[in-house]
């Protein structure tokens, strides 16, 4: 009954400087009512220690989602590795809803065969079973794919564990010289790889929908200019370098256009650059600051920050190939500061930076029902970015005066923090599902 999923071993990633697990994750707010799940350590069919603790990676993934509560290791009543070895009664007694069993086998060609089964303890049946072939360096990734399969089988929604995040780190050496790095890591913070390093400020990284290119702003020539870099080939291209600011670039959902902020005409305005023709279309025309464009998932609208009403608020404007299709409509009315909108992949939620009593927090507005909700209680939150399945928002915040990343579920129930050992980490951008397509 095992479905087969063959996984190509060769990871197409050749990045600049691989380093190990620089980000550590701490779950700062768990969820009551999360579904209990037992993940038994996988059987290792060879000598020595297993090459990766797959069950632990899966358990951490599921716990981070906020929907699952993995059973602590010491509470595991038995260590079955196959469905036919499972005594369901024992697991029911522990109030466990689901059970994951599996095994890792070393193959003669230095690869591994990872098999697992997801079992419904109440129905005593198998919900999913897969056999995945994996290279040694891909085992963490295989674990994230297993997490995605489990998440989908139980919640009915796609998981976003086998995806990536990009972010900026800033460190300072003893001579007080700063080093800015653009890095990419797995969604759990592991496997960090630096793709660009500069002694000049770096800002606003954002993914192309193909998951292979990043667009960002670099001050390497003394002023903010927009670059696109392929993270596989390292090839980069300076896209716009007008007089004034060139900032906040974001790819349209189909990847054919880039929305951004340019002040070349004297004032920060939103423009759309057609990637194929290099034609530039002006979207906003206002004496105020207009910046931080975010595309609606259908590509027919842009949400942006403007202080045209006296304070920074979020607006939406329709766009097509010729430019704006109507007047900008104000969306936010809570408080005197709502900026840097991010739209959920289904277009329903708008995340933003919201100021409340001098504190900057992540808030979310339901674009259909209009409900507004503050999700965090910190004081310097920035840069919200949705996971590709829309369930989590990753953002930048500070902890003991250091820049850290944090993630919160869209319902605000689950929170976690990703910290660097040294320096600041900021401006996270979550990739699309496609980033890891093989």
């Amino acid at each position, binding site marked *: 009954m095992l479905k087969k999923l063959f996984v190509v071993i060769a990871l197409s990633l050749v990045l600049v400087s691989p380093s190990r697990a620089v980000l550590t994750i701490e779950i700062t707010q768990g969820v009551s009512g999360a579904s209990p799940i037992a993940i038994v350590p996988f059987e290792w069919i060879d000598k020595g220690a297993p090459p990766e603790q797959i069950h632990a990676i899966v358990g951490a993934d599921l716990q981070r989602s906020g929907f699952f509560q993995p059973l602590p290791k010491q509470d595991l009543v038995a260590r079955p590795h196959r469905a036919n070895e499972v005594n369901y009664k024992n697991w029911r007694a522990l109030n466990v809803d689901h059970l994951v069993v599996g095994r890792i086998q070393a193959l003669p060609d230095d690869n591994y065969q990872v098999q697992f089964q997801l079992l419904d303890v109440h129905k005593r049946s198998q919900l999913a079973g897969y056999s995945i072939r994996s290279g040694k360096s891909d085992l963490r990734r295989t674990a994230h794919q297993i997490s995605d399969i489990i998440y989908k089988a139980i919640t009915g929604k796609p998981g976003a564990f086998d995806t990536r995040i990009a972010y900026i780190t800033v460190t300072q050496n003893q001579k007080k010289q700063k080093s800015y790095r653009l890095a990419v890591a797995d969604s759990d913070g592991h496997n960090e790889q630096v793709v660009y390093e500069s002694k000049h400020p770096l800002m606003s990284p954002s993914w192309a929908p193909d998951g292979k290119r990043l667009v960002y702003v670099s001050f390497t*020539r003394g002023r903010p200019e927009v670059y696109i870099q392929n993270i596989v080939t390292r090839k980069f291209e300076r896209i716009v370098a007008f007089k004034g600011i060139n900032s906040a670039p974001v790819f349209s959902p189909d990847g054919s256009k880039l929305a951004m902020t340019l*002040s070349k005409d004297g004032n920060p305005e939103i423009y759309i650059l057609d990637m194929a023709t290099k034609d530039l279309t002006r979207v906003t025309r206002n004496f105020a600051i207009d910046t931080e464009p975010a595309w609606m998932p259908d590509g027919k609208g842009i949400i942006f920050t403007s202080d045209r009403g006296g304070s920074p608020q979020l607006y939406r404007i329709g766009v097509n190939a010729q430019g704006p299709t109507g007047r900008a409509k104000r969306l936010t009315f809570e408080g005197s500061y709502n900026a840097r909108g991010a739209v959920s992949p289904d277009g329903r939620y708008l995340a933003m930076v919201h100021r409340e009593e001098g504190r900057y927090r992540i808030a979310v507005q339901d674009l259909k029902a209009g409900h507004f909700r503050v999700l965090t209680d910190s004081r310097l939150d920035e840069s919200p970015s949705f996971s590709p399945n829309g369930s989590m928002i990753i953002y930048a915040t500070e902890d003991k005066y250091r820049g850290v990343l944090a993630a919160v579920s869209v319902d605000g129930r689950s929170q976690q923090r990703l910290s660097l050992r040294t320096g600041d980490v900021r401006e996270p951008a979550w990739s699309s599902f496609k980033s890891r397509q093989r």
Partner: protein
Amino acid sequence: MGRSLNYVLIAGLILGLSGCEFKPVKKHGEDDQATQQADRDSRYGVDEGGPLDIAELNDPNSLVSTRVLYFPLDSVQVSNEDRDVIAAHARLLSSNPEVAVILEGHADERGTREYNLALGERRANAVQQLLVLQGVAQSQIQVISFGEERPVALGHDEEAWRLNRRVEILYSGY
């Protein structure tokens, strides 16, 4: 003779500067370091032995010794005291049309980075506007915003934020 040669040199440098066009460019895999070097090389300035005497810039009693202007939160409003400072800079610049300045706009760390980049530019533009109104040529001024990316005060309190919301008036060589 030496004098006029100096003028020619300065004029050439200013022309070189204003000739800097910022158009969309397409370059594949170019060396970051090299571009940076090339761009950094297009500096301009007044030679020590040149005909200009702007020793005033080094006189602590002169208004033009103030070259950092501070702004309230979320504001691009120039204070009354700073208007006097800007007027002094305007007098100096308009009577020395060979001299150029960079106005660097900055914001504090609060709020969003891209908005702050725009805010920094707005602050520098506000200063530029006052200089131009008082007779300084547009070609003498270059505006650059760093948003919140280049704080001078590294703290995370009101005092650090106050010091970081600023426009710096940068004379080459001073």
